[in-house]
């Protein structure tokens, strides 16, 4: 549906006061009716890339294809896109009705058809009672619904959403994310949604592209990014929890990992894997088993560690437990509330930790 090939763009003046920023060799393929999230920290180039897809920035090189049509040089109005910018950019001189009708008026449609379509959209988005209000008099959530209705009024092939929920409070955000997902599925639109929040991405994405410093670092499903980040940079961004450097040694179908303090772990070695020497190791906090007694049934090659509970933090649905392993390494363990209540772990307790080899993710960079 959307294909971006080797997109390059430099903005700003390298010799100027603000310096320059570059999107480098961006290649992306978003499938039809897919909800694709571009996830990256502030200043990573997300908005610049989205604006390039909109046609608001003329790219230096590369190709953008939307629905089989090369739109690299096309004007924004000829790309078949609906654009929802950050803070929504509603037209302050137009009412809710005027904002939603704006794109339809631009297409010189019959007045009666525009009126009917606007009424339909206002009902669908629950803003009919606000029809004659100006944007300044709307709440953040209402503004967002009006902006979405305005973008969808022209029946775009692709919906481009620039941090659509970042201006909302946390409670509203969850609800709106669900609505966005539902809306995208019901209208069967392809959507690209950019954000810097990991939980927001998990709430909506079919697939995710991680972007940082103007480069796409990984494109995968949320679960893949969560459990198998391509490198330590991505692992840090997806809140890996436990990220260490270790010394790796190949041993048949296993990798033997040695950490500071002499702690040893085993990980699966994929066929053709050439990982050896200094590597990065990620273990998600929720993958670590924790027990007050030694475990009875363990998978082969599961690593068993002993340690002392340092701190326990109740985060509501999850409990974060910091453990100092014998040998000095610190490990974060995450338990569900119920699981934690069954274990009743307190700071200072001696505990055992079990880490299965498939939960040890090894990265070369």
């Amino acid at each position, binding site marked *: 549906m959307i294909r971006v090939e080797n997109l390059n763009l430099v903005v700003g003046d390298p010799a100027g006061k603000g310096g320059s920023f570059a999107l480098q060799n961006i290649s992306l393929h978003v499938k039809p009716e897919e909800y694709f999230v571009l996830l990256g920290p502030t200043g990573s180039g997300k908005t610049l890339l989205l*604006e390039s897809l*909109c*046609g608001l920035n003329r790219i230096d090189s590369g190709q953008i294809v939307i629905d089989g049509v090369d739109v690299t040089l096309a004007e924004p109005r000829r790309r078949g*896109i609906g654009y929802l910018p950050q*803070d929504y950019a509603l037209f302050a001189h137009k009412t809710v009705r005027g904002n939603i009708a*704006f*794109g339809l008026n*631009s297409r010189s449609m019959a007045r009666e058809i525009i009126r009917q379509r606007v009424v339909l959209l206002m009902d669908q988005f629950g803003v009919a009672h606000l029809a004659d209000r100006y944007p300044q008099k709307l709440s953040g959530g209402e503004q967002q619904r009006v902006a979405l209705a*305005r973008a969808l009024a*022209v029946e775009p092939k692709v919906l481009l959403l620039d941090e659509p929920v970042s201006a909302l409070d946390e409670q509203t955000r969850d609800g709106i994310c669900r609505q966005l997902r539902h809306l995208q599925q019901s209208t069967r639109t392809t959507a690209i949604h950019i954000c810097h929040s990991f939980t927001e991405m998990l709430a909506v994405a079919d697939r995710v592209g991680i972007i940082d410093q103007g480069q796409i670092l990984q494109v995968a499903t949320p679960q893949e990014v969560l459990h198998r980040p391509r490198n330590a940079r991505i692992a840090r961004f997806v809140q890996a929890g436990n990220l260490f450097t270790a010394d790796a040694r190949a041993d048949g179908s296993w990798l033997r990992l040695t950490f500071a303090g002499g702690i040893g772990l085993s990980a699966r070695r994929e066929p053709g894997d050439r990982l050896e020497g200094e590597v990065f190791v990620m273990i998600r906090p929720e993958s670590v088993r924790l027990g007050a007694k030694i475990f009875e049934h363990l998978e082969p090659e599961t690593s068993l560690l002993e340690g002392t509970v340092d701190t326990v933090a109740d985060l509501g649905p999850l409990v974060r437990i910091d453990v100092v392993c014998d040998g000095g390494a610190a490990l974060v363990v995450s338990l569900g509330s119920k699981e934690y209540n069954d274990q009743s772990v307190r700071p200072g307790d001696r505990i055992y930790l079990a880490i299965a080899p498939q939960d040890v993710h090894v990265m070369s960079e």
Partner: protein
Amino acid sequence: MPVSGTHGVLFAASMLAFVVLFVGGLLAIFAADLRYIYGEPGVIAKVIRSPEIHAALWLSLWTSTVTVVLGLIFAIPMGYGLSRYRFPGHALVDSIVDLPIILPPLVVGLSLLVFFQTDFGKLIEATGLKFVFERKGIVLCQLLVSTSFGIRAIKLTFDGIDPRMENVAMTLGCTRAGAFFRVALPLAYRGIIVGGILIWTRAFGIFGPLMVFVGAVRMRTEVLPTTVYLEQSVGRIDVALAVAILMLLLATVALVAVRMLGLGQR
């Protein structure tokens, strides 16, 4: 803004005290003028009946109005261009635009007189478009002296309008020009009205460059500020003050009318 509590009242009062001082000072000066001409019976009737002053009044009004129209034709695209686009020498151009604000208006008149003595200036006048000692010259002087005020006000307005609104308009079917006319321009209307008021008031009040460039020929190139100058220079202070009061009344009516029509609360 609602005012509550002792501190709030004190703060608001201290801010508004400056308004009272300034406006009160101006009113005191105007009251002194009125008192002066009140002591000279018949002067107001004389001013109202004078055909020379009628001609000067009419000339002042239409030249200032034409200047506003021409000034806005320049100020709107210039304000938008300087606000939205960056180019080499942007800061220099931005500063040059402000020069007529800083320069004494007399210098503009003098420079125009010199310019029309150059070959290029003579070429322009040879086409039949004559400015020196002509009524068209009044508009040219007013335009050069007052347009910068309008450009500055309109540029600041466009600076405050989020360009993303125009970006959205372009994704919704507008061309770049369409986004300007359908989004940026309507959003800037208050700034444009303010710019227009600034151009009009400045144009209505100038006389220094006119004395140099178009002269002060009665019934021909004399505008109201010139009348005030000429009357006081021959010692008819009462007539000069009566004309000044007439100018004040006209300007106040025009400003209040424009503000009420164009700057009402949405």
